């Protein structure tokens, strides 16, 4: 810690009276970073879930066809 902040954590938090502005800015930065990371992560998870559901339905259809060969061409 530099000389200013060496004395106490309170000094560090207060930022010489400008704590509100400084910490608000850094909090907003963290928020923007998290928004960008999480929005991609959530979209990825949703995509994967939808994809796996679809694959399972395809596979299910395949099994049903195997069990009931008499049905012929499965309906869409």
């Amino acid at each position, binding site marked *: 810690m530099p000389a200013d902040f060496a004395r106490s954590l309170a000094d560090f938090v207060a930022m010489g009276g400008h*704590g509100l502005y400084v910490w608000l800015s*850094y909090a907003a930065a963290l928020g*923007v970073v998290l928004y*960008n990371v999480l929005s991609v992560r959530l979209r990825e998870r949703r995509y*994967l879930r939808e994809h796996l559901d679809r694959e399972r339905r395809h596979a299910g259809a395949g099994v049903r066809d195997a069990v009931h060969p008499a049905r012929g061409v499965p309906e869409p």
Partner: protein
Amino acid sequence: MTLKELWHRLGSPRWFYQISGRLRLVLGLTALVLLVTGTVWGIAFAPPDYQQGNSFRIIYVHVPSALVAQSAYLLMGAAGVVLLVWRMKLADMVLAATVPFGMSMTALALFTGAAWGKPTWGAWWVWDARTTSMLVLLFLYMALYALRQAIPRPETAGRACAVLAVVGVINIPIIKYSVDWWLTLHQPATFRLTAAPAMPPEMWLPLLVNALGVYCFFGANLVGRLRLEILERERGTAWVRERLAGGQL
């Protein structure tokens, strides 16, 4: 690989998907290391300013976000030209994938500017040429977002966005030179290509680290969003099903 081959390969989203996974990881990790270093350095170890005291530390958020917001827009302008002239699919995806990132960074630059303006100038907001042109940048990002939502046909939406992106590039030099062309409350640039920075190294080094970090973050985020765009546009194709067979993206 020659440049021409690379150009043609860029036209193939499948190829881009295959090579980009590791690129994203490397960029993401680099961004994490740089941003943590630069931020801790800037907030706790860099000296305060002789006039502004500790509110000066907002610079370590404000300048990198403003820089990357403008660079992202320039990238969209370039992608717009490529889309309009060469009709490259990847260019349309870049155009779509950059908007949320650029919009959030512009908003961050404006917000931190206000939080810095209040203790320094004495006002949260002043309608000078720099702040106003930055606000126009935010509106351009919003317009690009809305335009894509408003046009149902993806191809038409892509071209409309490309035209707006190209036209909007004119705002970037206006933002940059606003402080030189007009009388503004915002001060002129501290960093110039032709002169030493008006700031000692213990102040600008953390800023440089954060700026590099935010560019790496932009790269990682852009690649991540591009991969999603590719997956969504190529949903159900043989290569996507094969690729995702293991249950992972």
